[in-house]
């Protein structure tokens, strides 16, 4: 694929579509996801998970983060990956997202946390319609970072 800056996609996410955004790069399975830093509250080491019987598979349980009990989301399932094993690299990224206009705090399991970097819609690739098992509404756009494709997820859609 060559330069994609000329893609005339409607600017769905934000008033300034080509403004670079600060994002935290995390690995989930083999993929790299970019989480906007404005959402990120903190990154913590793994803590014991309390499993919630009857909850949806991508929200398997609760964790205690400094006296607040928040849900822990495991995005592996949503992207068709096998559940990750806890390794020395595993972290929990605590984020705040808006769901039905209410701010909701939750943790996301990251198999590895890379670094904060800039991503821009200007480099966005057209989300391919074929060759992908992921549901298109889960993805805001796909872009390039360090010669790798990264996914900017639409967390509100993924979590509900």
């Amino acid at each position: 694929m060559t330069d994609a800056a000329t893609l005339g996609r409607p600017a769905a996410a934000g008033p300034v579509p080509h403004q670079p955004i600060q994002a935290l790069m995390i690995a989930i399975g083999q993929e790299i996801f970019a989480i906007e830093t404005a959402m990120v509250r903190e990154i913590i080491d793994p803590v014991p998970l309390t499993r919630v019987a009857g909850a949806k598979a991508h929200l398997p349980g609760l964790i205690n983060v400094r006296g607040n009990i928040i849900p822990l989301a495991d995005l592996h399932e949503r992207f068709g990956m096998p559940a990750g094993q806890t390794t020395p690299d595993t972290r929990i990224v605590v984020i705040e997202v808006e769901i039905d206009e209410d701010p909701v705090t939750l943790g996301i399991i990251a198999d590895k946390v890379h670094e904060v970097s800039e991503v821009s819609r200007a480099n966005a690739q057209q989300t391919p319609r074929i060759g992908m098992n992921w549901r298109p509404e889960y993805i805001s756009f796909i872009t390039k970072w360090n010669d790798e494709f990264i996914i900017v997820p639409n967390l509100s859609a993924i979590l509900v």
Partner: protein
Amino acid sequence: MMDLDPTEIFRQEAAELLETLETVLLDLGQRPGDGDLVDAAFRALHTIKGSGAMFGFDRVAAFTHDFETAFDLIRKGRIVADHEIVTVSLSAKDYIRTLIEDPDSTDAIIGEAIVAELHRLVSGLGSGGAGAEAHEPEAAAPPAEASPEEAGWAIGIAFNPDILRNGTNPLGLLDELRDLGPCEVVADLGAVPELAALDPEHCFIRWTVRLHAPCPREAVEDVFMFVSDEMTLTIAPLGEAAPDAAEAPMPAAQAAAISAPPARKTPAAKTPVPAKPAAGEAPAAERPAPDKAEHNRRSDDKGSTVRVQAERLDELMDRVGELVIAQARLSQLAHVSNDLAIKAIAEEVERLASGLRDTTMGVRMVPMGTLFARFRRLVHDLSRDLSKPVEFVTVGEDTEMDKTMIERLADPLVHLIRNAIDHGIENAEARAAAGKPATGRIELSARYVGAQVLVSVQDDGGGLDTARIRAKAEENGLIQPGAALSEHEIHQFLFHPGFSTARTISALSGRGVGMDVVKRTIEAMRGSIDLTTVPGLGSSVTLRLPLTLAIIDGLLIRVGEGRYIIPLSAVEECLELTPADENRSRGRSFLSVRGELVPFLRLRDQFDAAGQPDPHQKVIIISTGEMRVGLVADQIIGSHQTVIKSLSKLHADVTMFSGATILGDGSAALILDVAQLVGLGQGRAETDKTMEAA
């Protein structure tokens, strides 16, 4: 963070006063002659007027003034507040509310009409003919003091020395007196000490006022209405030989009369008046006792309540929650420690924390009465609009619930009460035909049952028309004609969205919205709704609500790897699952507790627990209302002070748990939703029954 906008404070205060006023007016409708109630209404009006003017709500102040003027006649006992007056007063009260909340939405002409109507009622019954000007009828029928009123009054004023500390401005009161008519004010500086000993926060000055105005005695007393407990007031007619107190300082009058704010340190009128305090005592004692009592009660109320923002309470609760968690960790540490001192401190902290917890929780609890009082107006208005006389009875007003729960209950109860009056209570002919008293009866009650509060609305009307509900359900295609359904199942259609059996749509009901909303609201509060009816005798709707408190006593149990909390208030007893029951339970899942059959649920199955069950399974018998269910767990760990944290919105689909808490080791544990589990158990028991029947 704190919003100290004075206008907002006035709004809040006025809202409370208006609420009080409404209650008082409704009470007055039932006990028309009660002077205390009239006084209470008058005081509320007076305060609204005063603070309204202070905060620039001029229209409010002006209207309230007129309202108050009319009400004054009732207060004086010239006329008795009858039903009509109460009704007009209620609309006047509503008008004040509109003026405060949304003044642009209303026209002054409405206010004028209300005042005119009030005056018509008041003066039509009173002795004076022309009633628009309040002072006229007062002057027209003075009980005994006709002549002195012409001349005016000699007023002796002696405040308690510390009155200034309470923010009272004596000069303001003197100005109010001047509003009544021309005054000669004489200050008595006799008690003012030497400069060195002068405490500027003490009021040493006494005043003698000669008021030359034909106003009634009460008008003078009204000026001092709010400070009468903190002063000695003497009022004597001017015409008569005035008491010594008033006479003595007369020579000095010329000197000090003109300068109204008397210069404190000028010993101009150093005329000691030893007779005055004595003269003052007597008339004060003569004042009617109930009046005095009212004033006392009022000041008591003021002293013992503090208005706190709800968020601050929530914050306090959160802090206490954190403290309880920290305390649990301390106790755990102390438990494994050998240090006796640590153990002693841990115990002490535990005791303090649990006391603090109870107190804080108590602060958040509000008696149901505050909610119930609101519905009296609703019933009053509906009963008038529908011409169905209704007696409204409330029971269990002192049942306490969390404030947020009470707020959320208001709308559902409005629906239920409306339904009861509109659909439940029959019209007069039907009641007469059924041999019932003409006045219908609606009972709103609240009581504790186990860990729940039951709130029910009961009417003595015709009951539900099961056949008609069935017909309607068939018509709407909800059921097949002729389907075999129990009455209970048929009644459930009432909670169906858009379901209404009302033949005509009225302003109140018949649109088919309501019961489904009620049901949804109650379920959102993790409560449930029951409907029972006896044809011809009435129906009742019962809401079962959890006492959602921020902290509860819980029983900590272990199921597989996970630890869970059962609210202790729901726990009846704990048993060991005998091997006999264990083995038999493949076939049936209930056990016999002292001869009674109790269904049980294996929590391991419910929670999909991994690993092998413990050899000796425990049964915890829980109950809500009449139902009992056993829960089978691997281990009972012990009691635990549980700070309830609600589950995230993302887990809204989880029904078995009502919340989560943090354990001493910092991990999270889920709190079982007992009502849900009992429901599961019930379902299980019913399947068992059908299996046995088959």
